């Protein structure tokens, strides 16, 4: 298994969630997410006043795809990376900062949050999340063994597959 995996749970998950929460308070942004490079949401926080967020799955996938494309662009130009991505619309904006090779920090904000503040605190938070995710990086298999992902899991999952995708 080549791709490293992040097992964010227990204390490290709480810690990451706290960073995301503080980030919302500091910047006045609506949503903050920690997303892995494959496009899966690892942790997320919403401001109390924010409306229901858009589909987080789609959001994370597009952000990760976009970040991968941006990185490939940077490499074409001989750069190691372009560290941040900002998209600003009339009402809302998205700020994406690289946490490290494993994860991305995503902040969604509206006009109430000045973009300078989002960037400043975003970079700071990314630094803290870097430590947390590096610590949570696991050798594949170790964490899985603790889960009891055994043949029973496979059989139950297979039965659900038949339900959803039809009997063979």
């Amino acid at each position, binding site marked *: 298994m080549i*791709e490293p*995996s992040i097992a964010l749970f227990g204390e490290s998950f709480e810690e990451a969630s706290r960073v995301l929460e503080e980030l919302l308070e500091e910047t006045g942004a609506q949503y903050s997410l920690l997303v892995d490079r*494959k496009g899966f949401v690892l942790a997320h926080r919403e401001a109390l006043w924010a409306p229901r967020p858009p589909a987080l799955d789609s959001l994370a996938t597009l952000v990760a795809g976009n970040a991968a494309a941006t990185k490939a662009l940077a490499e074409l130009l001989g750069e190691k990376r372009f560290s941040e991505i900002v998209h600003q619309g009339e009402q809302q904006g998205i700020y994406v900062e690289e946490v490290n090779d494993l994860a991305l920090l995503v902040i969604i904000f509206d006009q109430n949050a000045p973009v300078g503040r989002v960037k400043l605190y975003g970079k700071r938070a990314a630094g803290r999340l870097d430590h947390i995710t590096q610590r949570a990086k696991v050798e594949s298999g*170790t964490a899985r063994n603790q889960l009891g*992902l055994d043949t029973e*899991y496979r059989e139950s999952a297979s039965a659900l597959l038949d339900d959803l995708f*039809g009997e063979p």
Partner: protein
Amino acid sequence: MSTINFATREINFKIVYYGPGLSGKTTNLKYVYSKIPEDRKGEMVSLATEDERTLFFDFLPVDLGEVKGFKTRFHLYTVPGQVFYNASRKLILRGVDGIVFVADSAPNRLRANAESMRNLRENLAEYELSLEEIPLVLQINKRDLPNALPTEMIRAVIDPEEKYPLYEAVAIQGVGVFEPLREVSRLVLGRLVSSSKTS
């Protein structure tokens, strides 16, 4: 590799539909989307050009349900098939858990099938992966074409050793769409379990 989120108790798998341009990868996803109940699927995202050619990827999250306390979810992706888009195609393979290779039955696409399979191997190699490590299932699509090539002939160029499960399909009518998806999902689940045993 599957992503396990312990905090939210979720296991996610990434399945990628690969194959030459216009072989029907997006058609597969659209059919799956149309048949899965509302509460078991997320939004389908398509990044396509104006003439409906996939530009970057299509994406569809499917919820399998809860297994032993874990929400199990499959993320289905398609790659852009056109040779031209290899840079973005490669990006989609990152973190792939299983592949459905969609081949085209049209006689003039035989070579495109072979080239796409070679391209898949090359792109996986860049992630230091090989088809020995990633579950692969073949779908021979467009079996309804009047001049469709014999399945064996297509298999000979993409899987001469006959190593992979093969399904015939007419994806646009939904024939042979779910079978390969179920099989690759099964293989991916099996791999998760066996890798946790051996390590």
